[in-house]
């Protein structure tokens, strides 16, 4: 195979990081101080008064919150690192939202061990799939503030899922609810070649990794 031509002097965006932070960056990633916007479709425009969040479980009644009700749920603020499969990582990002544990509290999941997966569905049609275990125990939130300000629509506002221990495509923008199911269903990117789970520390970017 012919050797790849290197453009003289081209460096791309700044990708250097000091040593102390490098340990927090998974293999194959580089740190960015920006917040890149990746868009697979038009930014949804759901007005707040029509926004709601629903949970459908095969074995429980549907749960639903309006925006005002969602705002009254216990909220948390957390600082986390996020890692995008397109290789940028952003450290110390500040979010505010509701823990998924809080949202699932009304469902007796332990009584239904066969319900093992969560499908997040979103305005615009995006979906992503996760093992239920990965969104429980304080590992996931539905967030509506970034950096103490209302979440910008281009970054997923009014609310998005946040699951920092997995690649950021799992942190679905414009999330409107969950379906809790027995069988896994590959979501928007998982169905066209991306890894079904997506652990950045194991570099699980693509199917088969």
């Amino acid at each position, binding site marked *: 195979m012919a050797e790849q031509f290197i453009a003289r002097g081209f460096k791309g965006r700044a990708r250097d990081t000091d040593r102390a932070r490098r340990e927090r960056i998974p293999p194959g990633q580089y740190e960015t101080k920006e917040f890149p916007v990746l868009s*697979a479709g038009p930014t949804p425009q759901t007005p707040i008064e029509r926004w709601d969040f629903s949970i459908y479980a095969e074995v429980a009644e549907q749960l639903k919150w309006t925006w005002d009700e969602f705002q009254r749920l216990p909220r948390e603020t957390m600082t986390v690192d996020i890692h995008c499969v397109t290789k940028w990582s952003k450290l110390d990002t500040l979010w505010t939202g509701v823990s998924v544990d809080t949202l699932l509290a009304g469902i007796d999941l332990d009584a239904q061990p066969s319900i093992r997966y969560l499908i997040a569905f979103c305005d615009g049609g995006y979906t992503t799939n996760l093992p239920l275990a990965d969104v429980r125990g304080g590992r996931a939130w539905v967030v509506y503030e970034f950096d103490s300000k209302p979440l910008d629509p281009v970054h997923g506002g009014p609310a998005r899922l946040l699951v920092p221990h997995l690649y950021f*495509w799992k942190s679905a923008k414009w999330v409107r609810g969950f379906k809790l199911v027995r069988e896994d269903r590959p979501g928007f990117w998982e169905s066209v*070649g991306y890894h079904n789970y997506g652990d950045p520390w194991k570099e699980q970017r*693509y*199917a088969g990794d």
Partner: protein
Amino acid sequence: MQDNDLRLDGNAAGGLLNEIFRFEMTTAEATCGGCGTVRPIGEMMLYQHGMGAILRCAECDTALIRITHVRGCYRLDLSGMTYLRIASEAH
């Protein structure tokens, strides 16, 4: 940044489509499975997401073509369109 400022015309996917198809695809016409509109791929809305390319109907935003190219393999999801019409000869 404004909403939707990131989107391009389907014509900008010409290079990627040329990697996959033997024919000039930017002028190929697709029937949208969402609203029935028939338009050339050049008139679709292209979202060049870093993870793949998404071509959407300009009328109803249905995703007509999704393309990823990972680990040496192209994957296409064409389920959003019902028909694709490609000229086999230049006219």
